[in-house]
């Protein structure tokens, strides 16, 4: 694992979960849609000893027509678990999230949404590139992940995810940035 500014190079063997994420994010990229992966999968990508059934992805706010074209582009491989109606899916993305899985499956699934607060906007704006062998994906800054899990989510699982990231990246993490993000989170959520 090599860490440099805005980029992490990882030479891991890909899991089924990684392949699923790479495949879906490639489709987003092919449609020119900016995205960032947040939450549990980020810790799992860097070795956390657990799995997950859903992967949270934020995408830039785009017009309905562009989003509809994306749905058309993925329709042979993926289905939305919530509804078949593109307008309903778009509305879900604005207010909560829409789940996508490979056709015929329900797990694993991608929880896709538009950013709805400053923290989510920050994750998208400051995304970090992870080079996975010849592929690449974008994740939220590690400091933001840690701050969000320790300050907003706080479940046992989330605190362990944060601890894992702190230990794995102990030489690269900027503690001041974590504190700065925590202050923003407090203003938004508390």
């Amino acid at each position, binding site marked *: 694992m090599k860490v440099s500014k805005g980029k992490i190079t990882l*030479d891991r063997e890909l899991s*089924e979960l990684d392949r699923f994420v790479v495949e879906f994010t490639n489709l987003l990229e092919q449609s020119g849609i900016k995205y960032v992966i947040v939450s549990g999968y980020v810790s799992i990508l860097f070795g*956390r000893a657990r799995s997950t059934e859903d992967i949270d992805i934020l995408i830039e706010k785009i017009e309905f027509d562009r989003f509809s074209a994306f749905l058309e582009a993925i329709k042979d491989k993926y289905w939305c678990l919530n509804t078949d109606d593109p307008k309903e899916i778009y509305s879900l993305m604005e207010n909560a999230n829409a789940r996508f899985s490979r056709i015929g499956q*329900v797990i694993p699934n991608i929880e896709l949404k538009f950013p709805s607060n400053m923290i989510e906007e920050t994750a998208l704006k400051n995304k970090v590139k992870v080079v996975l062998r010849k592929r690449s994906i974008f994740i939220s800054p590690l400091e933001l992940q840690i701050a969000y899990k320790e300050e907003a989510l706080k479940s046992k699982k989330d605190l362990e995810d944060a601890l894992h990231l702190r230990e794995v990246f102990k030489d690269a993490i900027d503690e001041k940035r974590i504190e700065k993000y925590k202050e923003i989170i407090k203003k938004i959520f508390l």
Partner: protein
Amino acid sequence: MKKKKILTREDFVKYWANWVRTHPDKEWSRQQNIIIDSQIKSAIEFYRKNRKAREKFLKMIREK
């Protein structure tokens, strides 16, 4: 007699994270993938074979 230290979950998380940090990516990921791939495979199989569970799962998502 020397007492054995009981490892807490936090100790284990730190121990494993340190192992990840100090070993080649291919080595730790091979071990991690055993957990991930088996869980994903069994979940896919579960929902493929259990139509009722699958419908219940979808209903839960759609009613949210």
